[in-house]
């Protein structure tokens, strides 16, 4: 993927204060808290911009997220930056917000159809998941073998896209044989339980695709408990500190990392631009990288895993 350089020079003079609500798909995961830091970082760099951060507790709470968005529309915020839990269900929300004079930016996941006037700042989950399949095949080696998916929540769009992408990617590797998919319900201990059970049922399992943070950590602990740490190859998703330390310890072959910080950061900046300058910034693909033990200390990768405010950066990864 390629990330476009996007430097909107914003003049900050005598502008009235603006209030932007940032609504993730859910709260409580490292991924979304990086979005949060990005958003606050952007706000801190602009004068008179304040952001409110609020979200539902589970990505599948589509109705509750809709309620929350409607509440923000009613309070008359100036901008709304949000990640839609369901692309179709939210397709009227953006327009009704705009009708109420609110500028809208989509981050992470847009709506279908995506209104022309609403910029989308996101990664493509499907293609990133294909990347995961490729890397898992590489880690397992040419002999191939059984692989399993530890997904997180059936019926969540992100989940479905990642599973879909992985399965599509897998088609290129006939030696890899998918034995099952289990769900962690976004809970570390459940992930541990289901992975332990998968390992028991398939003693010759070669690889696991763990589709998000909690799935990854639970899967890693399960392989460790079964004394198969490092032998069963794991490709995880997201880069919370514990996941990264799994890579360092050699328990995780690789992590798909998106750039949530950038989504938050650019999302807020885009909203501010829309509000103050009536200018619509372009859509943006924030890209994804595969984090492995070998590229952990790579500067670019570091930007993905441990973003810091103050150094808005450019990344270019393959």
């Amino acid at each position: 993927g390629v990330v476009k350089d996007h430097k909107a020079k914003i003049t900050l003079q005598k502008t009235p204060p603006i209030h932007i609500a940032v609504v993730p798909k859910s709260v409580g995961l490292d991924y979304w808290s990086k979005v949060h830091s990005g958003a606050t970082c952007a706000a801190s760099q602009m004068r008179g911009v304040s952001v409110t951060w609020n979200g539902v507790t589970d990505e599948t709470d589509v109705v509750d997220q809709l309620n929350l968005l409607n509440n923000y529309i009613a309070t008359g915020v100036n901008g709304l930056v949000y990640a839609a839990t369901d692309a179709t269900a939210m397709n009227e929300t953006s327009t009704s917000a705009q009708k109420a004079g609110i500028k809208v930016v989509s981050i992470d996941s847009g709506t279908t159809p995506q209104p022309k006037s609403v910029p989308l700042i996101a990664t493509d989950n499907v293609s990133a998941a294909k990347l995961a399949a490729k890397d898992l095949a590489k880690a397992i080696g040419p002999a191939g073998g059984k692989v399993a998916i530890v997904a997180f929540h059936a019926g969540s769009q992100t989940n479905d896209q990642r599973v879909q992408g992985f399965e599509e990617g897998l088609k290129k590797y006939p030696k890899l044989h998918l034995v099952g998919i289990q769900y962690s319900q976004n809970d570390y201990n459940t992930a541990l339980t289901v992975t332990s059970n998968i390992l028991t049922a398939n003693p010759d399992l070669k690889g696991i695709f763990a589709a998000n943070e909690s799935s990854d950590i639970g899967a890693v602990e399960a392989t460790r408990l079964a004394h198969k740490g490092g032998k069963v190859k794991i490709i995880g998703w997201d880069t919370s500190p514990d996941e990264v330390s799994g890579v360092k310890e050699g328990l995780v072959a690789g992590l798909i990392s998106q750039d949530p910080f950038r989504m938050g950061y650019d999302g807020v900046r885009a909203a501010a631009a829309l509000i103050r300058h009536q200018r619509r910034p372009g859509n943006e693909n924030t890209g994804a990288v595969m984090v492995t033990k070998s590229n952990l200390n790579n500067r670019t990768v570091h930007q993905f895993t441990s973003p810091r405010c103050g150094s808005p950066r450019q990344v270019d990864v393959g």
Partner: protein
Amino acid sequence: MSTNIGALRGAVTPRLPEPVRDRLSDVVSQLAAAGGLIVVFIALSFASPYFLTSNNLFNIGVQVSIVAIVAMGQTLVILTAGIDLSVGSVAGLGGILGTMAMAKAGFPMVPGICIGILTGAAIGIVNGLLITQMRLPPFIATLGMLGVARGLTFIVGGENAVYGLPASFRLFGEGQIGPIPMPILYVIVIAVAIYLILSRTRLGRYAYAIGSNEQAARISGIPINRYKLAVYVISGALAGFGGMIAASLVHSGQPNYGVGLELNAIAACVIGGASLFGGVGTIGGTLIGALLMAVITNGAVLLNITQYYQQVIIGVIIWVAVWWDQVRRRRLAAATEQAHGRRSADADSDGEAQSNGGGGRRRASATA
């Protein structure tokens, strides 16, 4: 003494005919119970300029509608000393089947909605049979159903949401009649219906009786099983209806919809004064309970309170509201006793007829 009482009663509601007075004090007592809600409401009106906007009130109404509708069915169940843990899953299953009927089988809107409701009713029948015929405790029967219905939702509907609904279906949840959004209308209609059921029909009377003393109800010749079945069917049907409203609001069938809804519904009942041990509860109370939770959530967003503080605040307000309600009741009881408690006993000994009494008097003193 009885002149004393008479005087007091007269002072409170002078010259009104008895039934009207009864009704009036009923309303007053209901309003007093809403104390917590009213306080929160007033506080929010001052705290946020947006709170009282018609737009926002409208939002609250729509947001509370699903929980309120499901909780009203739950109230019936709880009155019988039962519990329905499956409502959340049933809302999910009803929503999926109803939307699939429209999107996949090409049903028009109204039959599609009916399918959602009938699904709920069917699940209610199964719940009821498990409880009455296999004699499972309601908690077990409906807990099992919570898993079964959710599993079925995914098995039948697949992992993805159901899209491609007719545009008209949006109106079901988002339309308005005059200035009133449809969901609020549904709540009103259902509330009136269940109020009538509870106060005027055998079903309601027997629900109270079964929850109050099942053995006594049985001895009195009430066909308990039939009425228990009925309350679970109503609860299921209303959950299905709630699921259809949710589907209309997001214009899609979400297989995960309703997770945790049961807890909200039960909470609304209990905050509204229903007892999980049966025999106690009102529709008014349940509506107040549901509204209280919705208003707090809405207010927290308006006041820009983050999720976590919101959770803490909601918890504390629930505590305070229920506590306050209890203090009010206890004080009321004490006052009644002080003023007249002994009098009803007196009536026994001095042989005077007490044509209207404790109930009315107690309520009257509440208004004083």
